[in-house]
């Protein structure tokens, strides 16, 4: 099944749910990081020219650090986010959703080499799309995941909606559906709202009623708006 939810029980006695991130945002994040890295190496190379051999010595060390430790340092000290990942709203975590430590981050980033083979991350991509957590080889060995930590959309304001009791009694999950409809309606286009509301023609409202309005008012009633 195509489901990107990932649940894990945390000390606190509850299940947390996170959204896993697939290959495409991760590739985009990688590309952004790649450009940033290349840019820094280029600037540093130019800056090191006046210092001759000494400059190049430092350039080599800088290259080494950027190549292997750029992702590690950001992931450890910036809560699992390199600049590219930050732009995409994704983050690296352990598979219990705790932030990565230096050891695990180092491991997953060194093993990038194996993911890169035979060319341009083919092994990594194949591994990523053949397991349900979208882990590449390095993630599998280090026990890490990439999750989305983007802020969700704000629900609609409900102050100006007059609640309305439904004509028929509804099951609990049906009641939740009503409330969800109310909260989500701002994210849906009006025709889509009408289409969805149309499914319930003759059940919660008559055909001639203002369908969307009616459903939103029922939702507000179940929410407990006074």
């Amino acid at each position, binding site marked *: 099944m195509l489901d990107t939810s990932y649940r894990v029980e945390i000390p606190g006695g509850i299940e947390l749910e996170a959204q896993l991130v697939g290959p495409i945002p991760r590739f985009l994040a990688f590309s952004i990081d790649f450009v940033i890295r290349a840019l820094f190496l280029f600037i540093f190379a130019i800056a090191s020219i006046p210092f001759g*051999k000494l400059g190049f010595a430092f350039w080599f060390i800088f290259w080494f650090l950027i190549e292997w430790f750029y992702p590690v340092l950001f992931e450890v000290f910036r809560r699992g986010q390199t600049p590219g990942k930050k732009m995409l709203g994704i983050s690296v975590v352990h598979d219990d959703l705790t932030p990565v430590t230096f*050891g695990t981050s180092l491991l997953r980033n060194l093993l990038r080499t194996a993911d890169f083979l035979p060319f341009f991350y083919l092994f990594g991509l194949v591994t990523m799309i053949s397991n349900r957590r979208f882990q590449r080889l390095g993630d599998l060995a280090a026990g890490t995941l990439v999750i989305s930590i983007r802020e969700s959309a704000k629900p609609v304001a409900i102050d100006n909606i007059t609640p309305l009791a439904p004509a028929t009694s509804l099951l609990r999950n049906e009641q939740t559906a009503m409330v969800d409809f109310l909260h989500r309606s701002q994210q849906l286009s009006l025709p889509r709202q009408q289409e969805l509301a149309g499914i319930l023609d003759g059940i919660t409202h008559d055909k001639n009623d203002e369908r969307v309005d009616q459903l939103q008012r029922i939702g507000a009633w179940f929410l407990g*708006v006074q």
Partner: protein
Amino acid sequence: MKQHLFEMQHQKTWVLVEQSLENPNSAQNSMLLAEHYLLLCQHLALSKQRLYDNALIERLNKLVMRLYRELYRYRTDSRLNFYGFFVREFRLAIYRHRHFIGLALLVFLLPALVAGSWVYLDENAVYSILDGPDVRGIEQMYDPAARKLGREREADTDVFMFGFYIQNNISVAFRCFAGGLLAGIGTLLVLFFNGLYIGSIAGHLTRLDFVDTFYPFVVGHGAFELTAIVFSGAAGLKLGYSILNPGQFSRLNALRLAGRDAIPMLYGIVLMLIIAAFMEAFWSSNASLAINVKYTVGAICWLLVLLYSFSGKQFESR
């Protein structure tokens, strides 16, 4: 309880926690976050159980997740502890990898010895392993005649080579390790070919009787560099072996356990290669030192590295 009422009751707390998360490290805020963690867990559990709508559950889930990620951020293994690492952890990691170190050593040493003796005995053999220009470059580097011209390296050349060795050698070691993830094949290849090259270079230079320039140069840093390459090979082979023969674990869990074991090895390898790069750039290349001094120091280095490597057993808990 209806959702709206629930939200009205707790809205203030949630906003307070959200605000504290903006600046989680201040003493006051971290206290507040710790105090509210279980309360928010309860709120989330309640809203799920009461089938409140997804927007609220998502909001609380996000909040608890941020709180959780904040509270469970540091683990002891993310703190630097050089003393504990050097005295205990690295030695134990070496001990735990002992079988793989043996195997890696074999895969590295055997081709080195075979290629070395072959090149030593057969004048043309070196060209079937190395390129002509490479061989000439190596000959020039260690030609005693060239050395006697008194062309000592400048200080900035030493620093340049230090940077180069850091970049090159540690990257080789990292790739050697990562190759282990492909069922060990990548690691075996890296070890084999490195053994082949190093062996044939040594054989060739011995045949040319460049003994007094080559061996004093490599003996010192070789103790750290060659050992570190074998160690990285061992860590890689352990990764590969865990996939091929996971034992009582699932392949995935076996791989993760091997990965966890590899972390102290990686730290140690990096440290050893930094020492090696330092020695190679500033000590080994120094032509003004007497050969005997270099051999003595080299022997001491090898002795220390070997003693250290064989001393981990005492830390294994049984």
